[in-house]
């Protein structure tokens, strides 16, 4: 007698959980193959997305972690189809995980921070940033650490956990940045003329932005000078160069037009102790002389 057996129902072997059919094995192979294909497609898409945003080293590490992680998870999930019980693997994996977790707490923390840094993107390669008091260019964002080249050419490696949990100042986060320049001029100088000269200089400077508009005004009547403040917005790439250029240009222009920046001044009044033997007329004459000398001192300082 010939029995009609469906190929998919054919059981090549049995385990303690029951017989494993060819259908189960086929499902196992198909699901695993499908997950490999899907992981590859997602990896390709992510690789394109990471281009120019994440450093190649870090990007490849993340992609490998994603690719193999997905396959391992799917493999364990479909393992019961082959009749094998993955609970033993979970137990062994769990214990190994606890041991490794304790041993590599910081590394895992840095790694997870690195992944979040890449997702949130508070900084990019090439940005000028200040992180934990370190100011410089971001040269690389790796999976565990971020590399900064300081302005004086030092390479500083900051663990990603520190980068992620500390305040980050991104100097080039916006397209324009403002700088302030402070100048003190003499009380005898014309502040309106100084403001006019400074505004004219700013107007001639291409990188001093028209909008937001620059401002020049008297900020304070100081002890020794009338203090002016100049506020200018500049494209972020030209900010530093323009600041130093205008600082000196304004100083030179003011001087060329007879407007000086005074040194700190003190008016010192000197008077002698009254001589008991002098008559009131002599004392009065002496006081007038002292007042005259103070006035002359003032004139000398102001002219």
């Amino acid at each position, binding site marked *: 007698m010939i029995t009609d057996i469906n190929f998919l129902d054919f059981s090549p072997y049995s385990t303690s959980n029951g017989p494993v059919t060819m259908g189960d094995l086929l499902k196992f192979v198909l699901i695993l193959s499908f997950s490999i294909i899907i992981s590859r497609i997602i990896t390709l898409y992510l690789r394109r997305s990471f281009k120019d945003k994440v450093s190649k080293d870090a990007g490849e590490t993340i992609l490998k972690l994603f690719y193999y992680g997905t396959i391992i998870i799917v493999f364990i999930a479909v393992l019961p189809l082959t009749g094998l019980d993955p609970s033993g693997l979970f137990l062994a994996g769990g214990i190994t995980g606890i041991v490794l977790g304790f041993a590599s707490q910081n590394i895992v923390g840095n790694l997870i921070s690195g992944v979040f840094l890449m997702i949130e993107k508070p900084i990019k390669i090439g940005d000028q940033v200040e992180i934990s008091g370190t100011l410089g260019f971001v040269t690389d964002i790796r999976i565990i650490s971020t590399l900064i080249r300081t302005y004086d050419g030092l390479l500083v490696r900051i663990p990603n956990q520190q980068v992620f949990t500390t305040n980050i100042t991104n100097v080039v986060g916006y*397209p*324009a940045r403002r700088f302030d320049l402070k100048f003190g001029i003499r009380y005898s100088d014309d502040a309106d003329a100084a403001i006019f000269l400074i505004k004219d200089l700013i107007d001639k400077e*291409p*990188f001093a932005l*028209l909008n*937001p508009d620059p401002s020049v005004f008297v900020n304070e009547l100081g002890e020794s000078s009338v203090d002016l403040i100049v506020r200018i*917005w500049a*494209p972020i790439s*030209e900010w530093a160069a323009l600041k130093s250029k205008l600082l000196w240009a304004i100083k030179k222009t003011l001087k060329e037009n007879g407007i000086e920046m005074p040194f700190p001044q003190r008016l010192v009044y000197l008077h002698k102790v009254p001589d008991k033997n002098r008559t009131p007329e002599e004392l009065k004459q002496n006081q007038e002389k002292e007042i005259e000398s103070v006035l002359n001192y003032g004139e000398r300082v102001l002219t």
Partner: protein
Amino acid sequence: MYGNYDPPFSIEKEGISISVEELEKRWVYKRTLGTDTVEKLILGDGKHIIISPVEPLNTPKEITPNLLIEFEKTLLLAAGARKKIFLTFPVEIGVFISDKGNKNLQLLDVLTLARKKFTLYGPVSNGIICKHWKSGIYSVSPSPNPLQEGIMELTLRNTTSEWASISKAVFSAYGMKIFYDSDVFMRAHMDILNKNTAETGFELQHISGELKSFHPKNQETRKEAIEIYNRKLDFVPVSLTFDMRLGF
């Protein structure tokens, strides 16, 4: 001044002095404008020098591809209206070196007689740095100095059902088409899409190589200027537009 030159030559106009002279079996390119002097050595024979207007976004430094033209007076455009106006734009002069047949173009120098100033379009947090130019609004084509200013024929279209108040227009250098002859000319459009958004772009009126561009005055044929920005693209731009999402 615009055109092709075979070395040695020397030209002088409007305070600009350009020369290519042979010195000790080498070609020396020299350009003077005011106190600014540029000198370059050219090693190669049988080359042409081409002087052409270029996109006005290269001097004093290439920091943005966007040009903001601020109108001297705010313009009110009726709902659904389509009007043509003329503006001026700054001209930059590009000096190129090439093999015969204008092949293998290489930029030698860019200079300008126009005012150089930058501005921010939009707020500080998400604005865009633009080259700034202030222009009057003309109903007929003006006649500016072609070495300093060009003419832009701008077609304004208000696709909304409300009046549009327009005080500026932003254009991207990518897609910019400049033509020149006795003047420097661009034809652009600005479509008002809603209360805060407009789209600007350039009319590509070329056929191929030498092109026919309608001159409002005497229908003369203009040449196509050499484009610095479009040459950077991997593809030939058919229609590139700029979205003014931060008001106009």
